[in-house]
């Protein structure tokens, strides 16, 4: 059905063939890994910078402001200027801090988000890590970041970061459950954990449309829980500016701080990409039943455009949350998860299993 969509695997396949033709297979694989790594690093940095710029523009729109508009056209170079500033800033050594862990923490956070990024299907055939437990892998890897946050809070030898880190630990461990269960809902629907398999199962309609109300509930739970999991407002208790000054990264400066900052934005992208892939069909175009003409027009839009449109829609919603809602208190945060979201998503899974058993979904 989606044969008309351009498949990036023909491009990657030809590169692979070209490399294999003039070097040994082992060397070719090594070269490919290096190329992918480099491309990813560059993409990661540019995406981070763009997301920071986007957030500043979105919050400016919400707050009746203009946002950055001086450096470059429409302020596009503002975040690059900020990055240069952060690179040149002094890395302040903390007395009596655990130096090894203090330096290690930002890297753990950033590596976790980098690993999760590998499993994101950007377009048809443009998918680095595609294996049968894709959803499981993303969940496992993205929760590694909390280790870095805990280490950052502990090794700073300071009181505000410690409180922030403990909050973050409690928060992420709790909300991981809801994120997992809401993703499980779609895994039950599609019968596979592989991200490409989930996308293929949405060729005739996205799960949010054909999954009835349970899929919609799962999507809402996923949005709330994933916002909490990436420590963004209204769940940004770990860095709660007005309470803990900056939470777990209070003592960090310069580029080490920028690592946390970057990882936070990339995590937002990963969560949005995962939501778009699982609930909104990833790179799959919008199709309606047997409207052949309409479906063909939709197929002309490249798959990479579909993916980024959906992802940035979810990113916008997450930003919208942050700039509209006040912050929750820690006990309310945990109450929301353990007393509402978790029971709802557990019940939802049962409901979906029942639906699938009775073949009541499309």
């Amino acid at each position, binding site marked *: 059905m989606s044969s008309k969509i351009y498949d990036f695997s023909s491009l990657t396949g030809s590169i692979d063939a070209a490399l294999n033709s003039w070097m040994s297979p082992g060397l070719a694989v090594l070269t490919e890994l290096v190329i992918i790594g480099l491309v990813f690093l560059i993409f990661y940095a540019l995406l981070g910078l763009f997301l920071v710029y986007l957030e500043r523009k979105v919050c400016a729109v919400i*707050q009746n*402001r203009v946002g950055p508009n001086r450096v470059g056209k429409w302020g596009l170079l503002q975040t690059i200027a900020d990055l240069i500033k952060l690179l040149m800033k002094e890395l302040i050594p903390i007395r009596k801090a655990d130096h090894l862990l203090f330096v290690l923490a930002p890297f753990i956070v950033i590596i976790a988000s980098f690993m999760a990024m590998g499993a994101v299907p950007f377009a048809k055939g443009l998918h680095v890590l595609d294996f049968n437990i894709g959803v499981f892998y993303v969940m496992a890897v993205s929760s590694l970041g909390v280790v870095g946050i805990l280490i950052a809070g502990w090794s700073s030898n300071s009181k505000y970061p410690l409180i922030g880190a403990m909050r973050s630990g409690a928060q992420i461990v709790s909300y991981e459950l809801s994120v997992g269960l809401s993703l499980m809902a779609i895994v039950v629907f599609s019968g596979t954990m592989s991200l490409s398999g989930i996308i293929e199962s949405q060729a005739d309609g996205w799960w949010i449309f054909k999954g009835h109300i349970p899929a919609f509930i799962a999507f809402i739970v996923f949005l709330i829980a994933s916002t909490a999991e990436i420590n963004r407002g209204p769940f*940004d208790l770990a860095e709660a*500016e007005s*309470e803990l000054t900056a939470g777990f990264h209070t003592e960090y400066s310069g580029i080490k701080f920028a690592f946390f900052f970057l990882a936070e934005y990339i995590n937002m992208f990963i969560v949005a990409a995962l939501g778009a892939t699982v609930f909104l069909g990833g790179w799959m175009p919008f199709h309606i039943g047997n409207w052949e003409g309409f479906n063909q027009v939709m197929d002309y839009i490249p798959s990479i455009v579909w993916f980024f449109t959906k992802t940035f829609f979810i990113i916008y919603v997450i930003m919208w949350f942050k700039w509209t809602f*006040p*912050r929750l208190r820690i006990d309310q945060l945990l109450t929301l998860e353990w007393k509402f979201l978790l029971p709802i998503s557990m019940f939802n899974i049962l409901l979906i299993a029942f639906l699938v058993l009775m073949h009541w979904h499309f």
Partner: protein
Amino acid sequence: MSEEIIKDVIVRENEDYIINMGPQHPSTHGVLRFEVCLKGETVKYLIPHIGYIHRGIEKMCEADTYQQIIHLTDRMDYLSAHINNEAVCMVVEEAMQVEVPERVKYIRTILDELNRLASHQLWWCAFGMDLGALTAFFYGLRDREHILDIFEESFGSRLLHSFNTPGGLMHDVHPNFQKRTKEFITYFRKKLPEYDQLLTGNIIFQERVKGVGYMSREKAIAYGVTGPSARGSNLACDIRKIAPYGAYDKVQFNEILMTEGDTFARYQVRMGEMWESMKIIEQLIDNIPEGDFTAKMKPIIKLPAGEYFKRVETARGELAVYVVSDGNKTPYRMKFRSPNFSNLFVMNELAAGGKIADLVAISGSLDLVIPDIDR
């Protein structure tokens, strides 16, 4: 006072987990330091430490003439600068037995209320920030800018205007003053409901403020809490009603009282006061009598020997000015009873036992201005 109203002296223990909130902290709104003892997330006790911005204003007053003192009072509660000025002017006028013209009284009252509006708007901004609602800050500042523009046009300065002078005003208001004030009131009547839409009705906001930081009426009296913070605990303490000054006896307005005594009640009192302030301005703005902008005063003011006392209602509560004069051109002793000083020390009673986030919400709802505490 009896023990059940005021708690025992705080006893520090060695194993207490103490964090210092401030003097540089985003939510203390200035250089105030809370020594907070935590048990996990729960606040065990907190001790406010003041004095980081102490400038000795009361002592400086003893070396200054009364016209100069006006400028010092701006720097106490800088968000109610005009109301502070008025308190000193009223003391001097009473001591010199000068009757200020009606026009001055009307204009002073309108400016008082505009000042109160601007102050409450900024409080609303900062309160939203404290709770993590960052957009609230820009909504409030957007509207406050209109008031500051009116001030700027008439006095040339936006925050610390020192427009009052013993006997009247520095000069007459700008010809546009009436027109622009009326325009602002029409504008703000449309914009104030937006505040409710953005924050008041929000479920997260209500969860954060309802039932948090309960202050009983007795406690408010025991600690000398005044202003909107006390009126949230059903304590009628509005000086504008108790001892009307300026043109307050000529206008109809309600004293907003709430019985709940929690953070949300204090929030609602201030929101209600914004509506009342607009009502007061509307009643006065069209009826400003013609006349002089100041009474005849001698260039060198020497108060007759004696003691003088006057109080006004600032945006945060009762400001009382007490002057002892020995007949010279400078006061012998000057004492300010500032509202924030009393409002601050009830913090431990309200915040102990709550969470850190509650502490931030409570200190926001008391609307503290630190230079007014330290003076």
